């Protein structure tokens, strides 16, 4: 009813009382802003995690030795408990026979042994590294892209050769641009272990969402240096394996195959009272990440809902004040022939306009906040258009809901009483 006139009227009213209008909107601004900010940050984190996981591969399965009591939780994997025994771990023979048994379904098995972080150095030239013992299957499972030379091979592992596959970043840090890094020796110091390795291959370093922190300068970025797993095991506490990963030949079967893996290893661990083996496929991991994100989202939605409720009550309060202040105006309007529906519409439109402007400011404020947060943790901001539209729509709904009672009150004023009001 007379929408255009009502909107003009509401805007003029808000303008004439800027401070009060702003304070009224604040609750809505904070409510909508916090929801938009957290949803956007959450979206960025989820997108980044799924990027990383997709990079690892959807058809990847990881097999862990886990304590029996923790075997039903996916989030609480105890890696390397102190009371673990060498016999609790998986031997390379067990992995070998497992691989042979399921040769039709497994495309590669990846073994790894973390050595630790450190650097390679040659005079004033250096590169930050994280040394990882790996087997030939690692390359396929982890999607390592070779630029030059070759990846680690079975004979490197068997003979325990001091060879390494390094990143193009390390090469550009350590050598002049025309120099051929293959066959060159580098001195590594990682976790106090000093050793010299011969470079046999160079892979392309890819900054992934999770690993590439924004803080470190390009030159200082830490890349992985792969050495034969047998060489890494020389320094390791356990000779057997706490976990290994594998890639299935087909993506769709990975979940089903994960069950077979569980069955196979539970037989081997049948006699072990403390530990068992459990496999995790990517979907499994994704769902645990998603469930964490969902929990956070629900918590934030609750906070946002409370802020919006408080904001809505603030709007209702100010509308009631406004109705009282404008009693004479309402009386005059009625005397001039305004039906009660018109008076009601006028006040509802005003409440909706307050909430709409508050909602829009809240969206802008929320996006700014999200941009700030996401930039600090080095991710990319994605703004969900549906969420923005829903937020703005919802804030308008709050206006209708909390504006209705004051509007009803205004429309029911007796014109004689209202005209007499001082």
């Amino acid at each position, binding site marked *: 009813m007379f929408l255009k006139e009502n909107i003009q009227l509401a805007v003029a009213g808000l303008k004439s009382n800027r401070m009060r209008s702003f304070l009224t909107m604040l609750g809505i601004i904070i409510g909508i802003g916090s929801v938009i900010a957290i949803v956007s940050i959450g979206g960025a984190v989820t997108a980044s995690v799924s990027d990383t996981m997709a990079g690892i591969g959807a058809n990847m399965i990881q097999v862990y030795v886990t304590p029996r009591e923790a075997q039903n939780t996916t989030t609480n994997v105890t890696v390397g408990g102190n009371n673990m025994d060498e016999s609790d771990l998986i031997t390379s023979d067990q992995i070998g026979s497992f691989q042979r048994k399921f040769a039709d379904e497994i495309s590669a098995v990846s073994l790894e042994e973390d050595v630790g972080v450190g650097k390679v150095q040659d005079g004033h030239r250096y590169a930050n590294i994280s040394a990882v013992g790996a087997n030939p299957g690692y390359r396929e499972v982890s999607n390592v892209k070779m630029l030059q030379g070759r990846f680690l091979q079975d004979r490197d592992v068997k003979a325990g050769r001091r060879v390494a596959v390094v990143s193009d970043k390390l090469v550009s840090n350590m050598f002049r641009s025309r120099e051929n890094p293959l066959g060159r020796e580098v001195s590594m110091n990682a976790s106090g272990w000093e050793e010299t390795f011969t470079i046999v291959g160079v892979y392309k370093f890819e900054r992934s969402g999770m690993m590439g922190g924004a803080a470190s300068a390009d030159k200082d970025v830490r890349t992985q240096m792969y050495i034969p797993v047998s060489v890494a095991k020389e320094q390791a506490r356990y000779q057997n394996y706490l976990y290994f990963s594998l890639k299935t030949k087909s993506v769709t079967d990975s979940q089903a195959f994960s069950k077979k893996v569980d069955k196979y290893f539970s037989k081997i661990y049948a006699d072990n009272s403390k530990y068992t083996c459990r496999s995790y496929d990517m979907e499994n991991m994704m769902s645990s990440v998603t469930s964490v994100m969902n929990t956070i989202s629900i918590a934030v939605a609750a906070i946002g809902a409370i802020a919006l409720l408080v904001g809505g009550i603030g709007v209702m309060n100010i509308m009631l004040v406004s109705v009282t202040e404008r009693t004479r105006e309402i009386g005059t309007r009625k005397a001039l*022939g305004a*039906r009660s529906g018109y008076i009601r519409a006028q006040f509802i439109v005003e409440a909706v306009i307050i909430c709409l402007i508050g909602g829009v400011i809240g969206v802008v404020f929320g996006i700014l906040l999200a941009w700030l947060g996401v930039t600090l943790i080095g991710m990319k901001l994605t703004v969900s258009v549906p969420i923005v539209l829903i937020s703005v729509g919802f804030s308008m709904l709050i206006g209708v809901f909390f504006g209705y009672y004051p509007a009803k009150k205004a429309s029911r004023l007796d014109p004689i009483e209202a005209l007499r009001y001082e």
Partner: protein
Amino acid sequence: MGHEIIRMTDIVKNYFIGLPNELHILKHIDLTVREGEFLSIVGASGSGKSTLMNLIGVLDRPTSGTYVLDGTPVGKMTDDQMSGVRNRKIGFVFQTFNLIPRNDALKNVELPMLYAGMASGTRVRRAEELLELVGMGDRMHHQPNELSGGQKQRVAIARALANDPPILLADEPTGALDSETGRLVMDLFHRVHEKDGKTIVLITHNPELAAETERIVTLKDGAVVSDRAAEGKAVGRQCS
């Protein structure tokens, strides 16, 4: 004289109906006003003239009796129907002007036409004409708080004329003005009365103003105690 535009028969208005201290504000009022009359209703405060004005202006319903306004019985209407009748039949002029704040003169004059559902273009054109008529053509876009009392009342009269209602109902229209601007406003009423033949009902406690009208109805304790032609009605004519 034209037809009967207001016919009130045996009008009673009580407050606190049914309670022991029921108030009898209007006691069996009969009042007939013909089209084109300029009459004043006078009386001391508490005489019931405000209540009578509210009834004439269809702001209120009588406790009993019948009121036929321009051929339409209005006693038993719903609130919204009463709003419609006020919108089309009555032009209100208040003592305290009651312009809508934050709406310029033009918007104020447009308001009754807006409620009548008139299209924006026609509305603006008519509001401009009316403001010209009351001599406010150069202040159409002034806010009420930028206008003097006399100017506000002229805008209010333009607003009262907006839907070309048969009756102007003015409640102490000069009460808040000094005598000079009050004179200007009264002259405006005379002009509207003579040129357009509007029926004007003036509620006042000022005998001098009442004397300018054609007919004076005097109320006392809720009853009409005198209804006579004014002696000095020629005064108004000379001034206009």
